[in-house]
């Protein structure tokens, strides 16, 4: 059968979205550090404001540097378009706020990043939006949690920090059977490890602060529209289908077809909430995307060796990583994430919280900080930091024990990483003996 030969991942991760600058020939993406753009004439200005021409009006809504990043990630994900945001948290919020009105409801995996959990559990209810949290392995639980006012299902590809793998194919079927979009946070996996749209997701969000930028330098987020969800199949999304008074009675589905959702994000969320990405930050993330596959391969190969080392260590109670056959999603991870599942995972150290702190404080290469997806290896104790606002019950529900230690494996020499961990374990063992 005939096949179409399109550009492959590594070509797109280096080139997509950019045509070399016409005026200067600049090979690198120029940083357009400008707030606004001169209109050719008054009529062209009116045309820009009325969505009659492509281009930029004001950098809160779009910017040429940021647009390259948006196109690039959209290309890598296989979507129709993207909007960049100031952080991953802003990406999640803007996607939710575009789809869910006051009185609306979300069904979400309970295995979520602490910041997302906080948004869903405590902040969104202030605006009349509630969430039912479901065990990501309880597929039927998602179906049972859906209410008439539910507007989306939300999950993370591979959850942070317990590494539950979200069954996108099965849960997307449930979502679509109920005329709901599936929104997937693919921060820990990036489009290199998994393509959520190919598996049934409709919208993808990223914290580009993590692996996409890859160097722990930049706050950034992205919302990507798969262009697959049929907003007109239901009356649940009048913000997509009905005339929008906030933009001269424009109907997003009528005017933009498969790009309806992302057009609404840009013309409402980006415009009104203002969480735009700075062009310099977009430039830094673009630099990261150029080496994405190379870094992710190294992250994964290092992780594979560290997981094996930890799994056999006397000081380790348990390791939660899909590589291990005792992980509940081992087979699912092999199916959905054949290149590797995640470089962010957790383990439990013998002796609990105090011994864990001794271990962390003894590490030299692993940095104790609140981030993941850096080229450098990172470590943190979630119960006292990233997830500290969660109640004991919520922590238990999310599987986060007090002794849990989260690692984000970097791309250093793996022998040095293992030696660093071994030094930590020696100190921990000594402290445990004394206690």
């Amino acid at each position, binding site marked *: 059968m005939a096949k179409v030969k399109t550009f492959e991942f590594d070509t797109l991760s280096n*080139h997509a979205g950019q045509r070399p600058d016409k005026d200067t020939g600049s090979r690198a993406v120029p940083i357009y550090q400008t707030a606004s753009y001169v209109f050719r004439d008054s009529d062209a200005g009116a045309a820009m404001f009325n969505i009659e021409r492509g281009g930029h009006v004001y950098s809160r809504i779009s910017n040429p540097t*940021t647009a390259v990043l948006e196109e690039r990630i959209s290309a890598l994900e296989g979507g129709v378009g993207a909007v960049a945001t100031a952080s991953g948290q802003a990406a999640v919020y803007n996607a939710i706020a575009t789809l869910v009105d006051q009185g609306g409801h979300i069904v979400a995996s309970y295995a979520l990043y602490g910041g997302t959990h906080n948004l869903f559990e405590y902040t969104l209810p202030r605006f009349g939006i509630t969430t039912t949290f479901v065990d990501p392995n309880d597929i039927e639980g998602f179906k049972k949690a859906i209410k008439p006012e539910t507007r989306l299902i939300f999950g993370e590809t591979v959850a942070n920090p317990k590494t539950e793998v979200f069954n996108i194919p099965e849960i997307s079927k449930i979502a679509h059977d109920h005329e709901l979009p599936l929104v997937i946070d693919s921060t820990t996996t990036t489009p290199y490890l998994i393509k959520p749209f190919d598996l049934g997701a409709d919208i993808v969000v990223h914290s580009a602060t993590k692996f996409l930028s890859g160097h722990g330098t930049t706050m950034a987020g992205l919302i990507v529209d798969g262009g697959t969800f049929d907003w007109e199949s239901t009356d649940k999304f009048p913000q997509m289908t009905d005339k929008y008074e906030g933009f001269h009675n424009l109907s997003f589905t009528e005017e933009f*077809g498969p790009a309806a959702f992302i057009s609404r994000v840009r013309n409402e969320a980006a415009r009104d909430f203002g969480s735009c990405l700075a062009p310099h930050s977009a430039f830094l993330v673009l630099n990261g995307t150029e080496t994405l596959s190379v870094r992710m391969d190294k992250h994964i190969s290092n992780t594979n060796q560290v997981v094996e080392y930890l799994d056999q260590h006397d000081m380790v109670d348990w390791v939660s990583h899909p590589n291990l056959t005792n992980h509940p999603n081992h087979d699912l991870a092999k199916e959905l994430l054949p290149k590797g599942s995640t470089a962010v995972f957790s383990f439990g150290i013998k002796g609990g919280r105090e011994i864990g702190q001794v271990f962390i404080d003894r590490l030299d290469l692993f940095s104790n900080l609140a981030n993941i997806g850096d080229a450098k290896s990172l470590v943190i104790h979630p119960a006292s930091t990233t997830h500290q606002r969660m109640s004991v019950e919520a922590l238990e529900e999310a599987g986060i024990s007090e002794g849990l230690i989260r690692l984000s494996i970097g791309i250093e020499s793996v022998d040095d990483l293992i030696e660093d961990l071994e030094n930590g374990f020696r100190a921990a063992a000594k402290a445990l003996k004394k206690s």
Partner: protein
Amino acid sequence: MYIDVDNQKTYIATGSREHVEGNLGMTFIHGTAMDHTVWTLAGRHFARKGLNIHAVDLPGHGRSEGSVIDTIEGMADWVMRSLDATQQEKTIIVGHSMGSLVAFDVAARYPDRISTLVMVGTSIPMPVGEVLLNSAKDDLDVAKEMVNFWSHSKSAHLGGSQVPGTWMIGKLQRLLERSGPGVIYNDLKACQDYTSGIERSKDIDCPTLLILGEDDFMTPVRNSKSLAENIPQSRTVMLPNCGHAIVNEAPNEMLDAIATVV
């Protein structure tokens, strides 16, 4: 808005503005397996300029009900009936790819109703490769991928959309995926079979603008030359570094070119 054509629910986009009685019409006709959304920017522009925008979804396409029409002439007659349904006596007519053949046929056979003809990404004849046609006949997904692939210039495959944040390849692919079974084959076959065009060129008595992409693989520029030579009042705008999907790759230049004949 929805109108009734041949007792079937038919969608026409109006650029988000209501028609004004007595104003000149501007009719847009989409290409193979597409719909009115390819004209959104231009439609909004010329609606603001006071034209009655009539961007159709041909039968069996987009939001319009009914079966697909299997000849360009049949589509042209249907377009006339849709204009009658909205009481538009005189219109500028703009078509892309297959839609350009329909617009051409309307202008040739109903000259009293057309003030200006604009053909975007066009050639007459418009032959279709055997591999593509056979894939489309079997309703294979690869047919949609081929149309998408060959519709864009090489550089567009790396992006650079004029509409910020839009991945052109992904957007057109999703639009093609929305077309129903048999639609791509029907449309491609209709293009292939429309062989009477050159003879009708002499019947075009209105100003005519051809907007062509220099890197068009679907309707190569060399195939458009005889058309330009045979239409009495024709002018050509050649867009450098642009493929067949001009509506996607160069919406601003296309709009500027159309504006010169409005």
